[in-house]
């Protein structure tokens, strides 16, 4: 495999007396969807914040971008490199329309300070078309959109900066079945466009549906790096919980059936 776009090795992060991350390695390549898994408090969000620059890592670790060492000491560093983060609370302005939200903080202007709505609407239309997202009118306030559409707008918004790595924090957490499918479709399209995607999710079905690889964190340390295609659900759960001895695998041994079989049909 070629050099990963983003590679972190030996990353640590301490908050006071708490070691949230110790010696964590992580990498994501072009056109690859990597799921970041772990129980609550395992350090997933901390790792995302280290990458997005919200909480820079402690010294000692190495971050490389296209094989070159870089430092990420703030959100603007991450943005300049081409890392986009979509947080769980979508950070959309309900009272603005779709075009307004897509270009918020990044408006296209013609005279000094005046908005070029035509240019923005064309670009928005092109962008959404390229993602095969179909929304009737781009001039409705986002408050009127469904949860899935809102998530899609939030993701599309991050793509305007031409990122190469996109990090999604629980993108399907609050969505219904059809809306989840829409978002998963979009993640696949991002992958097909050659973007590296880092996906945090608690939903194993989603992870198995779109991810190529699963990186598991446990208590702030690497607890496994599995190619999804040839790893069973139990192995991943074992890595997340820290032992093969857990209720899920005990049950599946007892019943002989994979819990997965009921999980994704």
């Amino acid at each position, binding site marked *: 495999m070629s050099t990963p776009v983003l590679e972190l090795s030996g990353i640590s992060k301490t908050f006071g007396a708490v070691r949230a991350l110790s010696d964590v390695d992580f990498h994501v390549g072009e056109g690859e969807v990597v799921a970041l898994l772990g129980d609550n408090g395992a350090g997933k969000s901390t790792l995302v914040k280290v990458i997005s620059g919200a909480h820079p890592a402690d010294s000692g670790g190495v971050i490389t971008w296209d094989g070159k060492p870089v430092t990420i000491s703030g959100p603007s560093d991450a943005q300049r490199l081409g890392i986009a983060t979509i947080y769980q609370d979508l950070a959309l302005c*309900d*009272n603005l329309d779709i075009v307004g939200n897509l270009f918020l903080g990044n*408006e296209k202007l013609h005279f000094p300070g005046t908005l070029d709505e*035509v*240019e923005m609407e064309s670009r928005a239309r092109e962008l959404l078309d390229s993602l095969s997202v179909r929304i*009737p009118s781009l*001039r409705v306030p986002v408050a009127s959109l469904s949860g899935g559409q809102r998530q899609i707008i939030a993701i599309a918004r991050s793509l305007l900066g031409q990122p190469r790595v996109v990090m999604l924090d629980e993108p399907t957490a609050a969505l219904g079945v059809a809306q989840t499918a829409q978002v998963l479709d979009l993640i696949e399209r991002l992958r097909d466009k050659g973007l590296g995607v880092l996906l945090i999710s608690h939903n194993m079905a989603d992870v198995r549906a779109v991810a190529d690889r699963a990186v598991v964190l446990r208590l702030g340390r690497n607890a496994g790096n599995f190619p999804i295609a040839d790893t069973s659900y139990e192995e991943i759960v074992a890595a997340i919980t820290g032992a093969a001895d857990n209720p899920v695998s005990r049950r599946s041994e007892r019943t002989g059936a994979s819990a997965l079989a009921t999980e994704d049909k």
Partner: protein
Amino acid sequence: MTQQTPVSKAPAQGGAESAESKRDPRLLVTAASPKGWIEALKRNLRSGELGPIPVVIGLVLIAVVFQSANDRFLSPQNLSNLTVQIAAIGLMTTGVIMVLLLGEIDLSIGSVAGLAAAVLGVLAVKQGVNEWAAIAAALAIGLLVGLVHGFVFAKLGVPAFVVTLAGLLGWQGLHLYLMGADGTINTSPSGPISLLTQTFFVPAVGWGIALLAAVLYFVSVATVERRRHQAGLPYKPPVELLFRAALLLLPLLGSVWVLNQYKGVPLAFLIFVGFVVVLDLVLRKTRYGRMVYAVGGNAEAARRAGINVDLIRISVFGIASALAALGGIMLTSRNFAASVSTGGGEELMMAIAAAVIGGTSLFGGRGNAYSALLGGLVLGAITSGLLLLQMNTAVRFMITAAVLLIAVILDAFSRRGRKTHARGGA
């Protein structure tokens, strides 16, 4: 923000995705005919998108009621006085609208108007400073006061309600202190201060402004729609634009005609409308305005989008207080005097009520500059009508309260309508 009216003949953009770029079949098409427009209007009304319609109906009702009670109500003289009367509080309302769009409130605008009047009176009359310089100083002090409010609110995290409540008391105190022993300072009846509300333009100027406004409106929207057409976006056909321009021109010409029957278009009203138009353009067409709406809609989202939220908040409070100071200057001009009571009475409540009656939401992110004009006209008409009927202030307050309540109820219904009809809204 206006709803775009798509048409079906938007050309495909070409390329592999051409099917995608065609208009979505789920979108309702508005036919380019009066019938189509009426249907679109009905659709909007049903979904709670009332726009200025309730206010316009209210104005017509007010006109009919007062005209039948006293036939001087619609006389050119009364209407001309009305336009001058609403200018001062109207300017304060435009500032309030900016603050309301942020989802905040400014309770100090009355006191700031009074402070500006005191500064103006003391400088221009007692100190003998050039009147223009005194006006500039009063405006600058208003701006400074607003920046202080904004700073304490945005940077120190004190709720705007409390900051401006302190301002309400504090600036009124400073106002009384500056006025000193005199209860009133009379301004020169022929100086620039008095001329602000005593100047009327010859008829030709009024006609010219009305025509120019309609032509500029048509040219600017036609340019935009042409670019939308060329870019393959939904656009409005020229017929509809002409219709809209005519819809704008008619009331403009009507107003000018009425005002010309008396003394002509008053400068004070022109200043007020000018600020409303400029504010509207700033809010809808500039990056700054988009930022104001964004901060009012979701401050955290605005911050993450890289908007300097604190700077927007401080600047909005600065603008609001500067406009309040301008309102105070207008009050001084109309009374030929700055007094201890200038801006200390009902001005604050009337300015906020006008913004809400005009359709600006108290909850932030929704509303427009024209609320100041519409709300100001409603309140001004009620005041003027009741004065003609020789009703006292008690009755006027009660009627104004009822109108305000109706406006807020309509706003609440409209919010509910937006939610259920997928139109969004704050």
